[in-house]
Structure formats: structure tokens, C-alpha cells
């Protein structure tokens, strides 16, 4: 395993090269998904009857990981489908790719047009860059730490809104659908509506929703139940667009915690964190020692 010193020795050019490869890989994967979008999909379930997966998810993840592994044999990988197959979600100091091959699998199955490939990258447990590719609109969101965030080459800037009563908020439901969970979920929405937010939207893809925050089109996003592979790339993109990502408790973001609040301003992020009650999901690193 590479030591911290060795990792430091990698020049910044190295990560830039990795990011270029990530972009190419995301585009190729996106094309596969676009093709598959038009056809019948074979659907299986994972943790619940609404936690869906298809052959395309697995195919695309294999494609991404094998092409990255060929170029970077010493790097590590955390991928949604590998994790479902039993691989541990352990983030070490090693350069690590954190991959969601299809974010918005339910949308993909229904041909609801919000589907993305998400590729994040961490070194020494720090998120270094993120690539999110909207497969149908062909919008490419990218950010490298310290170098700004972009969509199709145009720089992104978050909203500067601090007033909850002027906020447009995005969220997702998550895979748990038992009555107790839904009560908390609705209760959270009720509290936000009581604060007179402009509206709440649900688009079915956490990574694309987070990109809407990065672009300033939404003022905040909150969710319980998403994974590290949904957060990794988007966190860099939002930070580089000037925004904030925090834990739902108000503390610092915890990549493996299954929860997030993201917003253009720190005030907005904290208002939302204060309003929402927790829905507990098992941590992504629950089986990592």
C-alpha cells in the first residue's frame, strides 16, 4: 500500500491526468447507458423492494473499474455494485476511486430522464476531484480541488441565498419505506414547508440534484440514505462552486454516514440541519475494520 509520503510525491499533474481519464470513462459509460435506456431492462432488488439494480449497473461498473485499473493498477476502488457483491467500503490513504455507475437506477428503469455516472477520487482520505455525467442531456459536471467547478466548461457558482423562505430545496426519499421512516420523512418536509420555503423537488438522482445546488438552481439538498458513491464527486463540485456540505447533525461531512446537507451558504445548510430529524441507515463502512 502506498504511504502518505509517496502519495504526496505525486504531483498535482498526476491527479489532473486521473481526472481526464475519469471524464473519458464517464462519457463512455454514459453512452452505454444511453443505448440501454431505450431498451427493456431486467430488474432485481437489493436491500428492499424499491432498492433496484439492473444488469447495466453491473456492466457499467465493471467497464469503469477495469478501464481505470488498467491505467492505475495500484489504486483502490469503492463501487456501488462491488459493494453490493460484498467488497468492503474501506477508505484508506491510497488513491481511491469512488464510483456510482448509474445514479438514478429507478429513473433508468422507468426511462425517467435523470440518470448520471458519478466518479469521485480521494487520496489520504481527502476528496480530490469529482466527475458527474448526466447521460441523457450529456451535461458534464467536473471539479478538482482548488480549481473551481464547471458544467460543460462553464464555471459554476452556488446560490447566495440565506433566507429559508426564499429557498428551493431538493431531496430524495431513500430506500426505507416503512411507516415509521415515512413519518419522519414527511415530518421533515412539513417543517420545511412551514418555514415557507419556495418549494421542494425530488428528481430521483442524488448526484444530479447536488449538481443543481452547485449550479445555483437549487439552494439546498438534504437526504438520509444515500451512499459514499453518491456524495464523493458531488461534494467536490459543490465546494468548488463556493458551497457547503455538512452532516445532518450540523457537524462536518462524514462520507460514510449515509446522510448529507448541502447548500449554497453555510447559513442555509445549518437552518436545514436544524429542521430535519434523522432517519438512520447503516453506515457504508459498517463492515470495514
Amino acid at each position: 500500500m502506498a504511504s502518505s509520503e509517496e502519495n504526496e510525491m505525486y504531483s498535482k499533474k498526476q491527479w489532473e491526468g486521473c481526472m481526464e481519464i475519469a471524464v473519458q470513462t464517464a462519457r463512455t459509460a454514459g453512452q452505454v447507458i444511453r443505448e440501454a435506456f431505450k431498451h427493456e431492462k431486467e430488474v432485481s432488488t437489493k436491500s428492499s423492494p424499491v432498492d433496484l439494480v439492473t444488469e447495466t449497473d453491473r456492466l457499467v461498473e465493471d467497464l469503469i473499474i477495469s478501464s481505470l485499473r488498467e491505467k492505475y493498477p495500484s489504486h483502490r476502488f469503492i463501487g456501488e455494485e462491488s459493494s453490493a457483491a460484498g467488497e468492503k467500503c474501506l477508505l484508506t490513504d491510497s488513491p481511491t476511486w469512488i464510483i456510482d455507475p448509474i445514479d438514478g437506477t429507478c429513473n433508468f428503469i422507468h426511462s425517467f430522464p435523470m440518470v448520471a455516472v458519478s466518479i469521485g477520487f480521494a487520496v489520504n482520505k481527502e476528496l480530490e476531484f469529482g466527475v458527474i455525467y448526466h447521460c441523457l442531456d450529456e451535461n458534464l459536471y467536473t471539479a478538482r480541488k482548488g480549481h473551481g467547478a464547471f458544467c460543460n466548461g462553464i464555471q459554476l457558482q452556488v446560490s447566495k441565498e440565506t433566507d429559508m423562505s426564499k429557498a428551493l430545496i431538493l431531496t430524495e426519499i431513500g430506500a426505507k419505506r416503512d411507516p415509521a421512516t415515512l413519518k419522519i420523512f414527511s415530518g421533515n418536509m412539513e417543517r420545511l414547508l412551514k418555514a415557507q420555503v419556495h418549494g421542494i423537488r425530488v428528481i430521483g438522482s442524488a448526484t444530479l440534484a447536488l449538481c443543481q445546488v452547485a449550479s445555483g438552481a437549487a439552494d439546498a439538498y438534504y437526504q438520509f440514505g444515500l451512499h459514499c458513491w453518491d456524495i464523493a464527486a458531488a461534494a467536490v463540485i459543490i465546494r468548488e462552486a463556493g458551497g457547503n456540505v455538512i452532516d445532518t447533525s450540523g457537524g462536518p461531512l462524514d462520507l460514510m454516514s449515509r446522510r448529507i446537507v448541502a447548500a449554497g451558504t453555510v447559513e442555509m445548510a445549518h437552518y436545514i440541519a436544524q429542521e430535519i430529524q434523522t432517519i438512520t441507515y447503516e453506515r457504508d463502512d459498517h463492515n470495514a475494520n
Partner: protein
Amino acid sequence: MSDVWEECMDHGVAAARKAGEVVREALKNEGCMSVMLKSSPADLVTETDQKVESMIISSIKEKFPTHSFIGEESVAAGESSILTDNPTWIIDPIDGTTNFVHRFPFVAVSIGFAVKKELEFGVVYSCMEDKMYTARKGRGAFCNGVQLKVSGQEDITKSLIITELGSNRNPDTVRRVLANMDRLLCVPVHGIRAVGTAAVNMCLVATGGADAYYEIGIHCWDMAAAAVIVTEAGGVVMDVTGGPFDLMSRRLITASSRAIGERIAKELQAFPCERDDGKKEDQL
């Protein structure tokens, strides 16, 4: 066979496209838009809404001076929203004004057309995506020239449903809206989506990308055009009770199949909403 309303529909499409350009131009302008409130702090309107509606209505009046109009902003300014037998254009200049204000990319111009109280054609232009949805009664539904077909899904437990939270912030109404959503999530359905515009939501059902949309609290100008688009794509429109669709009722279910529509109706509890035509329950 020639279509007596073809000229009107062509004009509707052209007007929607032009309106979409105006909306896109307005979005390019840096800085905040001037936003006003209507019925609640979440019911927004801008100068662009008003400008676009004037533009659409005056261009139609020039060509079809005897026709009637029901437009969102005209009605807000006191015009009637009663549907007569006269050829009537039913217009929402910007469906998704909240999205427009935030630059959230789902904003549509919606132009419906009715004669003898029957909907004849519908045009919905999702202008940020440049998607032109059209349908002429009996001639199919299209998006940018590609024919649309609903999903045909009949099994609610495999369905993706769209709805909205609405702009009514009355706590009791909010609770009822959320309770309806919870009941559907518990069925369980695959998921619920909300993109922020009724017209686009309905068009997504028409494309097969979602299996149903329902909402209580929308207006005739939100539903008129898209109702034709969904039905011409093979879908159904009905009342939230499962009964026949009523354009002035402030509510609907639109679905890929009668089975899904009726199943949703079973879970929904309606709440009262003042009708667009001002009629009371006992006058129906």
C-alpha cells in the same frame, strides 16, 4: 383530410416557441428577477409571466379575433375563467414560475385549445430543455416530432408516480398533501418525483418516463394542453375520485392505464379547492 383547427394549432406552436425564447432571454439576465406573490408566499409571479401571456394573447387575437381566452395572469387580473362553447385558448404563460425564478431547468409554456368545451389540441413547450410537446385530438402526441406512448404499466407496485407539494402552505392542507404521498409510498410504489411544473409532469407521463401524475390544487391552464398530450399518447385522465376528468375542478389523476389511475384514486383523500369556474358543489 383537412383539419379545421390545424391553422390554430400551428399558430399555437409558433406562439409557444416565441414565448419560450422570451423566457430563455429573461433567464440569461444576471441579477434577481422582480418576484411578486399571489395567493401565498409560495405562489410566485414575475413580469415575464405577464409579458409572455400578453404576447401570446395579442398574437392570437390578431389572427383569430372572435376567439376567447382563459389565461393565468388575465384571470389573476380579474378576467373570467368560465369555459363557453366558443373556441377558447387556455394559457399558462410560465408553468413552473418558482423554477423559473430559481433557474431550475423545468419551465413550460402551456397552450390548450377547446371548442364546445372539448379539448382539441395541446402544446407544451419545455423551454429550457427545448422540448416541444404537441397533440391534436385523434392524431397522436409528439415531442420534437417523435411519437409518444405511455408506459402501459398496470401494476402499482412497479410504478413511478409524479406529484407536487403545491403552493398552498395552510398547515392542514400541507398535512393532507403529505398524507396522500405517504399512503402511496406505503403501497409501495417504486418512487415519487416532483419536478415543479404540472404541464411537464404530465408530459413525462405521456413519454412513458413516469406512470402517473396526480395533484390537487392546479388550475385549468396547467392541465388543458397536457391532458390532450397524455390521452393522445394512450394514457387516461380522471378525477382524483376515479370519476370523469373535470377541467375546472382544480385536480386530476393522469396515468398510463385506468388500472393505475383507479388504484391511485383509492389512496387519495381529496381536500376542497375553489373551482376555476367558481361553481359550488351543488351547482355541478
